[in-house]
């Protein structure tokens, strides 16, 4: 029986302070003179809540324990109601190792094991754990420490070739291969495509909110404002400065988020490592990957970039939602993305030649009524709003929306490509944002195809597949020829070939 690391208490208190800081400032600093009942009682509630939580944090440390044997983890918790949960190690889908500044301070780390089980107790989290114990736990879960990229390498910038030598050694020692590390050029491209320089807008707005009321005389302040507006040169200068600052902020944000990024793999696992200050290492077993998705937004398509996502049955519990753990890297050059997919998952291959839709699919797509447009237009006709003092705005808006809908459909027609091979399906679809979906036949847990009345006229159909994920992943491709839908159906009926193969494989083990 083991207790969690004692510093867990400190870590949780730190989290508590971090989470309640804003509310605390609001209650005791900003609104300290307010008699409004919400703030008045809120203060007492706040203090009571924080105190209770503090007590809970300390007491729960004594109550929460864990133990393990060769096959399972057993977690015990609960102050008044004792709770014991047993989690089989074989159900662990992926591992996240998150090292925040707090952890670095004490030379510690955190570990989260995620499973594909339903319910509340579907993950095992070690909020604070010593590095040695983390190694031990990882070994328990069959993930060798050497496979998780080593941290020591990061401490100083090493000479380039030295690092390469290290990598080469690694390749020999384990079958651990590094597939991707972004170059500065990649990152520059990424910082423009991510539009992260637009982050300056909320920052400036926030500053304005904070500084505005503090300025001594608002009339005087507005006076300056008008003076600025009067002089064109000043405006141009300020705009240039603002744009430069915005771009710099964008680049800094991108570098801090995606700068230190490494995708690597061993025979059984994929490892993603990222973050400059808050380090996160993520490992997922290749076996558990249900499919892959490549996503291209309009902007990324212009820059030739794409995001590769892994579809797995574990529910990602990312603490910072800025970067999804299921995403390999959001700004990969498209060819690199294909190579990376094939390198990481040798089972998968990217089919170059795919079928395209015929003209009748285009007619179908254009003829299909757009309910969204109809509802919005009906609303516009009823309210007839005037925007920018334009009486005609409502039908212009309706027209603009119609145009967007049509462009989106034509793009969808152009982007839609599909193919099936022995045991793999692959298709592209989507208008402004296009997606490629690729999966193995045995990973598809259900399929259906359907035909609406309009599709019957054009001899077209829609195909849907279902993959395990949380929630269940349903992918649909619309308006493909009916013949292909039938071919697809027959192909799917051959599914047990792959599945039986799987069982045989198990027997060999």
């Amino acid at each position, binding site marked *: 029986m083991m207790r969690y690391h004692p510093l867990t208490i400190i870590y949780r208190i730190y989290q508590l302070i971090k989470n309640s800081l804003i509310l605390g400032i609001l209650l005791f600093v900003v609104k300290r003179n307010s008699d409004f009942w919400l703030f008045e009682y809120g203060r007492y509630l706040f203090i009571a809540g924080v105190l209770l939580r503090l007590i809970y944090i300390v007491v729960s440390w004594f109550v929460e324990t864990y133990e393990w044997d060769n096959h399972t983890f057993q977690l015990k918790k609960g102050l008044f109601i004792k709770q014991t949960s047993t989690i089989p190690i074989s*159900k662990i889908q992926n591992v996240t190792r998150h090292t925040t500044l707090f952890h670095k301070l004490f030379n510690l780390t955190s570990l989260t094991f995620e499973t*594909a089980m339903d319910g509340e107790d579907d993950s095992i989290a070690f909020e604070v754990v010593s590095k040695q114990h983390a190694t031990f736990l990882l070994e328990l879960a069959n993930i060798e420490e050497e496979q998780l990229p080593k941290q020591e390498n990061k401490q100083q910038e090493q000479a380039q070739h030295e690092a390469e030598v290290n990598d080469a050694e690694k390749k020999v020692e384990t079958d651990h291969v590094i597939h991707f590390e972004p170059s500065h050029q990649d990152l520059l491209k990424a910082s423009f495509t991510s539009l992260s320089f637009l982050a300056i807008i909320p920052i400036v707005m926030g500053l304005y909110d904070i500084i505005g009321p503090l300025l001594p005389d608002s009339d005087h302040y507005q006076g300056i404002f008008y003076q600025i507006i009067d002089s064109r040169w000043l405006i141009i200068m300020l705009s240039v400065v603002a744009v430069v600052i915005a771009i710099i902020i964008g680049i800094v944000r991108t570098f801090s988020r995606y700068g230190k990024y490494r995708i690597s793999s061993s025979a059984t696992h994929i490892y993603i490592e990222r973050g400059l200050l808050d380090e996160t290492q993520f490992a997922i077993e290749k076996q558990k990957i249900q499919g892959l998705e490549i996503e291209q937004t309009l902007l990324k398509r212009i820059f030739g970039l794409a995001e590769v996502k892994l579809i797995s049955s574990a529910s990602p519990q990312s603490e910072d939602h800025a970067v999804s753990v299921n995403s390999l890297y959001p700004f990969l050059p498209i060819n690199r993305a294909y190579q990376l997919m094939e390198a990481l998952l040798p089972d998968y291959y990217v089919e170059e030649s795919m079928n395209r839709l015929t003209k009748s699919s285009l007619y179908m797509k254009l003829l299909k009524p757009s309910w969204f447009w109809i509802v919005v237009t009906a609303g516009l006709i009823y309210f007839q709003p005037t925007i920018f003092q334009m009486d005609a705005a409502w039908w212009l808006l309706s027209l603009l929306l119609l145009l967007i809908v049509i462009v989106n459909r034509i793009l969808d027609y152009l982007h839609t490509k599909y193919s099936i091979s022995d045991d793999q399906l692959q298709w592209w679809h989507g208008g402004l944002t296009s997606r490629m979906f690729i999966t193995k036949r*045995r*990973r598809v*847990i*259900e*399929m*259906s*195809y*359907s*035909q*609406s*009345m309009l599709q*019957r006229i054009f001899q077209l159909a829609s195909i849907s597949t*279902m993959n*395990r994920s949380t*929630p*269940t992943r*349903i992918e649909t491709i619309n308006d493909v020829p009916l013949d292909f839908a039938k071919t697809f*159906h027959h192909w*799917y*009926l051959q*599914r*047990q070939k792959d*599945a039986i193969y*799987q*069982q045989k*494989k*198990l027997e060999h083990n």
Partner: protein
Amino acid sequence: MNELEHQLSSKFPKARIISETIGNIIGLIVLAVLFWLDYYFDWPIWANWILIAVLLFVVVGTIWSFIEPHYLYRSWRYQISNDYLQLSYGVFTKEWVTVPMSKIQSVSTSQGPIMRGYQLRSIKVETMGSSHVIPALEEHVALELRARIAEFAKLKEVDE
């Protein structure tokens, strides 16, 4: 289009029409009470409009509920093999569904009072991500099918 093997019980349209009619009658009674309340308490005009709109829906729905079961019956097909459960149905949009047996997690039959009168049962099949209902089968057919699906679904794939 090569159709799947089996159809629903031919009693399905009758049973469906009866149960839907009962539902519609209850709906109409509720609506009539609301209209009376509207008249008696002099509700605002928009309430009146909403009630009229609802009435329109219910009337169209009631007429449709006499026609739909026949078409639905004609469109419904299912087929079961060692490896797959296949369904196809739909009056306007036709749907073909294929579920591998190994992915089926539970199968159950159920029977309401009207279906009991006609000796019918429905079968519900649940998988990891979806559930499907075969609406009306003869009692012995349903029980046999349930047993067969349960038998075939025993096999598990190594994919967890």
